[in-house]
């Protein structure tokens, strides 16, 4: 009985190239527990997922099955056997700092 965590390609270098990690359901009763368990096992993941004061980074998204935990109970969201947690990076960027002014006239 376990919970699976899916690791995105950029973070697999910190999990020994594994693309999915199984956690015992007993040790992963909530999303927060699961992420704590994961980063305890793979310490290098920690700085990519959390800020120095322990908050989930703004460009890290966690999905429980197909739902964003932002819209559930965040890290308090309860987990059950066979649940799948996915770490999904926010992919963002844009051009140089020489920004064009936004046109607000129509």
């Amino acid at each position: 009985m376990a919970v699976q965590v899916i690791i995105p390609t950029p973070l697999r270098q910190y999990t020994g190239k594994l693309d999915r990690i199984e956690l015992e359901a007993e040790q992963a009763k909530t999303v927060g527990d699961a992420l704590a368990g994961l980063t305890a096992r793979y310490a290098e993941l920690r700085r990519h997922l959390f800020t120095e004061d322990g908050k989930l980074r703004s460009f890290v998204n966690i999905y429980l099955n197909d739902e964003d935990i932002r819209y559930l109970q965040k890290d308090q969201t309860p987990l059950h056997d066979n649940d799948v947690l996915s770490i999904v990076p926010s992919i963002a960027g844009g051009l140089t700092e020489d920004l064009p002014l936004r046109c607000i006239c129509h």
Partner: protein
Amino acid sequence: MQLTDHMPLLIAHDQLEAIRQHAAREYPSECCGVLLGLADGSAKRVREVVALRNLRHDAARAQEFLPLADPWQESERNRYLIDPGDLLKVEKDARQRGLEVLGYYHSHPDHPARPSEYDREYAWPWCSYVIINVAEGRPGDYASWVLASDRSRFEPEPIELTENHRPEKGEPKETRWLYR
């Protein structure tokens, strides 16, 4: 320099053309998409280009995921954001077919194909970041970049153009649009 650490990105002519067309179509906004394929230790081979919508067109929803510092200066014209929900679907589908996310592409309308400080700030390690310049609506130079391991800068990644991949029976075409 660790340039030798970077595997070349192998991309077919028609895949690159798909990116060029996507970039031109979205001009003057930024386009974005995902590169799926296989990495075998010596190269990253692109098998599919998946064109995605730039979530910055939906300013309110984008703001929930990754707030902009100055929404008056920043918009879909100079920022892109891939909807994490879209990316989850793409990743799931890729995994079922034995493919992985090799990286991402986006356009710089009327700006060079070089990563900005903003690009660096939000970049993830290992992934290829293909940037294409679009000058007055015409797709121009392109380049691929990888974040340095200490996150201090982007390093250029070699791109090799290959023959067009011929999908086997049952395999999807190289380019898919997840929005229209």
